[in-house]
């Protein structure tokens, strides 16, 4: 009897993205990617454009001299580079080179196949390109429509499903078409379609290389006609289109700050990997929509909560313009009135956005990330003031929060959002559907009603920020909150959430009683600075215990909790963002070694996953489960913690000020940052044995505060100062 072997690790997914398109593949040869999802295996590969899934698996099959082969069965090697993925294949006496690239001008994916034969005479290789049409926004999980309108013209095969469409263009033109593997002469047709096939004939032989180029592009049908000329250009020069994507990536990377941690080189590498991963999420799916998609493979739409976590990292990376455009996008969809059909309350920011536009509301936390983000954008970019529309949006956010606030406790209510949507839509159609999620905090499949601690922290941060903005004026005009609302909420948070027996903080308060669950969310209150150093350290130490912290990250719920389930999304799985929260809180509490260790855990995941960071892992072993292989949540907070907590940086460009209060492990001797954007200038910071050297290249002077007396650094000069321990 032999021992059973562990299953082979899944191949690293290949993710190719342009600003409006993506290809997902497994690197075996075709555009296909089978992944575990929600406990079962689902085909996640294919082409996405404008946040609309155009296809499922897209395959090329070969036929030569009556013999058939799949492209993966002939693969010799594959590599990433030059804006795409390239594979080399050998079959019979054919040498086949393939390139796959996601392109943006005509949002879609172009594949090029070059077939070279030996000297055995002229022959014809038949290539059949087949794919499963989807044509549905990615935010609709798990639905594949079956009925499509098909139409051929001299240049393309077009497929339509309501207002969504795709176009297949090729060079050379197809020789045959298939619908569900049955021959189709072309023309116009409405049919139930499970697979579309297009056959091409390539002549190969002595001195003749057969080349096939196929572009599948699309998204919104109304944009498809406008992209005609761009599609022709991509097909005429697919290499140029791919290189344009690569050049934009290189330019972006070249502007990033560089970080050096000589005593922790793994963090340097992880920083570069995390930044590169974040770049893959950049998305501008249509003219007036900018942001980053939440992740791949199945969250590739703009999730505004996720933007709330990603955009602070982009500020540290210096991409102020992308942050501004992303905030503009989100605020444009702030609900102006109550729209129960979409789960929207007046002043609420959307949960999800996609071209169309398609948008939904119905979360308790998304809206609350943006006040602090807007303030951070102002401080980093150096903008003198906020756009008027942003100021009005902030006021509406406070009104939204005030309407959800319990006047007695000052606590903001979370819960009931999904129920409201079900109530609003129930009975309107022949077929109704919904999810019985009682609550929609960041752990939106867990019931954390009615006053989850992290939601309260966000609300407190919002109130405190608005009170600082209105210093000397009326607090929270137009609401019943009154002056000192932030202080009152802070007092409640410090009093009502303390869990003396556990040495930790309660997760929520429901019906006036604390919810005794140990979750990492409580650490957000530590990071916000609501507790003194000793108390903060005690909470971090509690989170470090092995019921919450594992060697591969931090669980969403203690393994001691009666409801703990290692495969429950928010009821026991390990989430990388929770690990970043633990790092953040530890560094705020002055626990440098603990904070660096949590950051090291994320760095290990980035290394093991070759530059991606999974959304989540099982709570009982380091195995991704029901997880996007890349989530912005998993890389952006890591980046932010490196700058804000490990380095202890705070930028106030309008005031010409940079604060530096590092929390480095005791064994560290040096660290450095170059090209840190502060408003219109850049700063260089070197730390060595407690001494800082700061260089400044911006307009005017930069005041540097390292805990002691501030030093003014003139443009083009450097200054030295000593760091004082963070207070």
């Amino acid at each position, binding site marked *: 009897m032999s021992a059973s072997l562990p299953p082979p690790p899944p191949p690293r997914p290949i993710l190719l993205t342009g600003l409006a398109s993506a290809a997902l593949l497994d690197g075996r040869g075709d555009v296909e990617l089978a992944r575990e999802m929600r*406990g079962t295996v689902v085909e996640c590969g294919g082409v996405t454009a404008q946040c609309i899934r155009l296809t499922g698996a897209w395959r090329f099959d070969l036929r030569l001299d009556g013999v058939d082969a799949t492209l993966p069965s002939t693969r010799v090697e594959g590599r990433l580079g030059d804006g795409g993925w390239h594979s080399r294949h050998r079959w019979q006496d054919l040498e086949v080179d393939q390139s796959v690239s996601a392109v943006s001008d005509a949002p879609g994916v172009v594949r090029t196949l070059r077939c070279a034969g030996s000297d055995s005479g002229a022959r014809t290789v038949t290539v059949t390109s087949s794919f499963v049409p989807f044509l549905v926004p990615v935010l609709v*999980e798990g639905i594949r429509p079956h009925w499509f309108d098909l139409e051929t013209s001299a240049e393309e095969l077009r497929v339509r499903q309501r207002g969504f469409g795709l176009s297949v263009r090729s060079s050379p033109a197809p020789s045959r078409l298939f619908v569900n593997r049955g021959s189709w002469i072309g023309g116009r047709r409405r049919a139930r379609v499970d697979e579309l096939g297009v056959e091409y004939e390539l002549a190969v032989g002595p001195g003749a290389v057969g080349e096939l180029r196929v572009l599948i592009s699309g998204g919104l049908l109304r944009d498809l006609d406008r992209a005609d000329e761009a599609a022709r250009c991509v097909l005429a020069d697919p290499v140029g289109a791919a290189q344009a994507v690569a050049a934009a990536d290189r330019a972006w990377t070249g502007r990033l700050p560089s970080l050096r941690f000589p005593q922790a080189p793994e963090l340097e590498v992880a920083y570069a990997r995390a930044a590169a991963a974040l770049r893959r999420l950049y998305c501008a799916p249509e003219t007036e929509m900018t942001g980053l998609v939440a992740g791949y493979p199945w969250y590739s739409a703009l999730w505004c909560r996720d933007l709330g976590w990603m955009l602070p990292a982009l500020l540290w990376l210096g991409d102020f313009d992308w942050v501004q455009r992303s905030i503009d996008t989100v605020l444009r969809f702030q609900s*102006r009135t109550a729209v129960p059909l979409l789960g929207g309350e007046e002043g609420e920011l959307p949960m999800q956005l996609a071209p169309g536009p398609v948008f939904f509301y119905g979360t308790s936390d998304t809206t609350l990330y943006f006040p602090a983000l807007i303030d951070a954008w102002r401080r980093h970019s150096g903008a003198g003031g906020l756009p008027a529309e942003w100021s009005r949006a902030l006021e509406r956010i406070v009104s939204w929060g005030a309407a959800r606030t319990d006047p007695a406790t000052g606590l903001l209510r979370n819960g009931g959002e999904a129920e409201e949507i079900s109530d609003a839509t129930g009975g309107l159609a022949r077929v109704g559907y919904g999810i019985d999620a009682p609550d929609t905090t960041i752990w939106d499949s867990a019931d954390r009603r009615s006053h989850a601690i992290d939601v309260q922290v966000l609300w407190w941060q919002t109130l405190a920020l608005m009170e600082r903005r209105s210093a000397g004026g009326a607090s929270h005009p137009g609401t019943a909150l009154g002056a000192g609302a932030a202080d009152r909420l802070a007092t409640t948070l410090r009093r009502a959430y303390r869990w003396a027996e556990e040495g930790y903080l309660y997760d929520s308060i429901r019906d006036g009683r604390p919810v005794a669950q140990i979750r990492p969310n409580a650490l957000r209150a530590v990071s916000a600075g609501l507790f003194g150093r000793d108390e903060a350290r005690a909470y971090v130490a509690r989170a470090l215990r092995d019921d919450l912290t594992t060697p591969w990250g931090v669980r969403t719920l203690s393994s001691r909790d009666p409801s703990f389930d290692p495969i429950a999304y928010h009821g026991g799985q390990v989430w990388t963002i929770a690990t970043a929260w633990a790092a953040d809180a530890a560094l705020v509490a002055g626990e440098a070694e603990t904070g660096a260790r949590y950051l090291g855990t994320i760095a290990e995941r980035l290394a093991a996953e070759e530059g991606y960071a999974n959304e989540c892992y099982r709570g009982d072993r380091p195995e991704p489960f029901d997880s996007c292989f890349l989530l912005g949540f998993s890389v952006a907070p890591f980046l932010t913690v490196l700058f804000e907590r490990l380095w202890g940086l705070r930028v106030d460009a309008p005031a010409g000020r940079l604060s530096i209060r590092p929390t480095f492990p005791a064994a560290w001797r040096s660290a450095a940052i170059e090209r840190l954007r502060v408003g219109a200038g850049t700063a260089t910071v070197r730390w060595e044995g407690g001494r800082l050297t700061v260089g400044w290249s911006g307009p005017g002077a930069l005041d540097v505060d390292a805990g002691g007396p501030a030093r003014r650094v003139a443009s083009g000069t450097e200054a030295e100062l000593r760091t004082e321990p963070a207070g």
Partner: protein
Amino acid sequence: MHRSGSWLSLARQAVSIGIDYGTHAIEALAWVAETVEESVYEAGSLVRSGPDLRFALDNPPLRVGAFRSVRVLVDRVPLPAERVELRAGPGTPWRSAASLTADAPLAFGPGERLEFRLVGGAPSTAEPLVIRLEFETSAIPPTVWLVIRDRPRAIAEAA
């Protein structure tokens, strides 16, 4: 009255969306709603087959996954799991919903078909029925539900 109130509310909200975000928004949201509505329940598949009711889904409702339980209610009355049978399509074996567990779940992916047979579930009248399906996965606990309102057609008893 309740229903007309819902429609009026819907109209008001649609106007509001149109004013704030343009008519494209109303159109696009309708595309999504129609796609989901028409892609999940196979229209007209609800039939009475002797004492049984049968119908089919063409997609999972809102969430793919490995489902550890599927619960069916007809006109708000829950059917015992032993009387709910499922199969991928003709030629595949029926499976009792009572056999579904976390370790032996029902895998249901995008574009896949799932046929239901509600044994002895046919009502005595020909009135339209309200069938509610509730799906649960271990991965994401909240129940996903689907409600179908349709009048069953009568067909000859099938194998």
